C-alpha cells in the first residue's frame, strides 16, 4: 500500500463544505436502529461546535427506499425531494445536509438529472405546485452529515477525551471504515475522496488516532441492497454479501467498524449474530463480534459521552470490548436503563455470539 498514492487521490476529490447554517433532514430508519446517532449529531454540532443546524418536523422520507425498490417512478421521488427543498427554502437555508446516505445519493442524482435535463426540473416544479402549491430554490450545497463531521474532525479531535487508541498498549485501534454505496459510487466527485478510496471516514479515523484497515472487500456492499433484504427469498443473498466482507476483513483483526449509512451498521451488526447462528462463527476476539458504530457514535465516544446515553446498548454486537480498549468507563448495570433510569429490559442472549 502506497499511502502517498491515496493522498494524491484524496487531494483530487475535495468538495466544498460550508462551515455553518445547515438544513438537516433525518433518515427514515436510523432512529429505530441506532437512536442515539442523529441526536448526538445535533448535539455535537450545536452544543460542542456551536453550529446552526435547523430541522423541521414537516419533512418526510426522501422516497429513496421506494425508489431503489422500484416501487415508485422517478417523478414521484423527485416531487418528494422538491418538497423537501421547498421546506429548506421556506426556512431560509441554502445548505442541505442529509443524515441518510441513500437520501444523499438521491438528492445528488436528482440535482444532476435536473442539471442535464432542465425540462424535467420544470415539470417537477409544476407537479409540486399542483400537489401542494409549493415552490423551492435548489440548495447551494448538498452534504451528507458525515461530510460535516469530517469537516469538523480536527475540532472534535481537539476536544477529545478519548482517542481511537488501545489504552493498554498505546497502539492505534485497527478500524474498518465502511462507506454507504450511495455516498460516492454514483457521483465520485460528490464524495470526499471520491468513489474508490473515499476519505470521509478515513479522515475521522486518522484524526482521532486510529489506523484504517484497507482489506480486499472494502468496497463491497454491506449486503442490505434494499430488495435483497426486503424480499425474504433473497435474504440469503443479502447475508452472503455481509459474510464475504467479514471473511475478507477477518485476517486484519479489526477492533471496530465505522460506517456512515443507515443500513450498513444495522446489517453489519445484526448479520454478525445471524452468521454466528448459521455458521457458528464469530469475527471479534474471544467469541465476541466486531463492534459496528456510526460515525456520530464514535465522535460522541471520543468526546466523552456516556456509552449508554448515546444508545450503544442497542447494538447487537457488544461494544464493551471496544470501550475497554479505549479506556472509556461504563457502568454495566446501567446498560439497560433508559431515560430516567427506566428499565428497558435485557434482551435474550444469542447462542453463539458472545454479548456480555
Amino acid at each position, binding site marked *: 500500500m502506497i499511502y502517498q498514492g491515496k493522498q494524491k487521490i484524496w487531494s483530487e476529490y475535495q468538495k466544498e463544505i460550508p462551515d455553518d447554517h445547515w438544513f438537516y433532514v433525518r433518515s427514515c430508519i436510523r432512529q429505530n436502529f441506532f437512536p442515539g446517532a442523529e441526536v448526538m449529531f445535533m448535539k455535537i454540532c450545536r452544543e460542542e461546535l456551536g453550529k446552526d443546524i435547523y430541522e423541521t418536523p414537516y419533512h418526510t422520507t426522501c422516497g429513496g427506499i421506494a425508489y431503489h425498490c422500484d416501487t415508485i417512478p422517478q417523478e414521484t421521488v423527485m416531487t418528494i425531494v422538491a418538497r423537501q427543498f421547498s421546506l429548506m427554502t421556506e426556512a431560509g437555508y441554502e445548505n442541505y445536509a442529509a443524515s441518510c446516505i441513500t437520501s444523499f445519493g438521491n438528492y445528488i442524482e436528482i440535482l444532476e438529472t435536473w442539471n442535464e435535463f432542465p425540462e424535467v426540473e420544470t415539470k417537477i416544479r409544476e407537479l409540486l405546485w399542483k400537489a401542494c402549491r409549493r415552490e423551492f430554490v435548489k440548495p447551494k450545497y448538498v452534504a451528507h452529515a458525515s461530510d460535516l463531521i469530517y469537516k469538523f474532525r480536527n475540532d472534535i479531535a481537539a476536544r477529545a477525551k478519548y482517542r481511537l487508541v488501545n489504552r493498554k498498549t498505546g497502539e492505534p485501534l485497527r478500524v474498518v471504515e465502511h462507506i454507504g454505496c450511495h455516498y460516492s459510487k454514483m457521483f465520485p466527485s460528490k464524495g470526499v475522496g471520491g468513489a474508490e478510496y473515499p476519505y470521509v471516514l478515513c479522515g475521522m479515523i486518522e484524526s482521532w488516532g486510529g489506523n484504517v484497515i484497507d482489506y480486499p472487500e472494502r468496497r463491497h456492499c454491506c449486503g442490505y441492497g434494499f430488495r435483497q433484504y426486503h424480499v425474504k427469498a433473497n*435474504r*440469503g*443473498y443479502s447475508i*452472503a454479501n455481509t459474510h*464475504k466482507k467479514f471473511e475478507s476483513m477477518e485476517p486484519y483483526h479489526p477492533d471496530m467498524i465505522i460506517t456512515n449509512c443507515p443500513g450498513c451498521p444495522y446489517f453489519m451488526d445484526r448479520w454478525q449474530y445471524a452468521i454466528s*447462528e*448459521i455458521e457458528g462463527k464469530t469475527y471479534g476476539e474471544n467469541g465476541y463480534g466486531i463492534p459496528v458504530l456510526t460515525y456520530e457514535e464514535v465522535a460522541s465516544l471520543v468526546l466523552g459521552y456516556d456509552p449508554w446515553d448515546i444508545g450503544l446498548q442497542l447494538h447487537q454486537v457488544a461494544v464493551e470490548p471496544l470501550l475497554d480498549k479505549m479506556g472509556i468507563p461504563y457502568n454495566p448495570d446501567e446498560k439497560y436503563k433508559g431515560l430516567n433510569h427506566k428499565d428497558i429490559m435485557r434482551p435474550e442472549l444469542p447462542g453463539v455470539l458472545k454479548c456480555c
Partner: protein
Amino acid sequence: MDFGFGIAPSSTINLDKVDRSRFTRLHELEPDVYKCMACGSCSSTCPAGRFSGMSVRKVILALQRGKEKEAVRMLKGCMLCGKCSMVCPRGINTRHLILSICRIYNEEQQ
C-alpha cells in the same frame, strides 16, 4: 437457529482455489487444449448439444475453472461424432481431447 434462509453460495470462480492437478495432466496429454479461443464453433455444430447442452468450449472452460461436475455432465452427452474437430479453426483434435478427459476425470468423484 433456522431463519428460513442461509448464506447463499457464491457463484464466483475463485481461481486461487482451483485444483489444477488434473488439468495439468490433461495438458500434458493434450497440449492443444490451451489453444481454444472460445469461438464456439464446436458448440454450435454439436449434434449432442441439442439434447444435452454439450459444448466442447464450455467443457474446456469449466475444467479450467474447476467446474468439473458441470464438464462431466456435458461430456456424458457427447456422441464423439467428430464434427467439432472438423470445424475447429485452431485444428484442435477435440475427439481425442474428449477421450482424454474421459480418462483423466472421473464421474464417480464428482
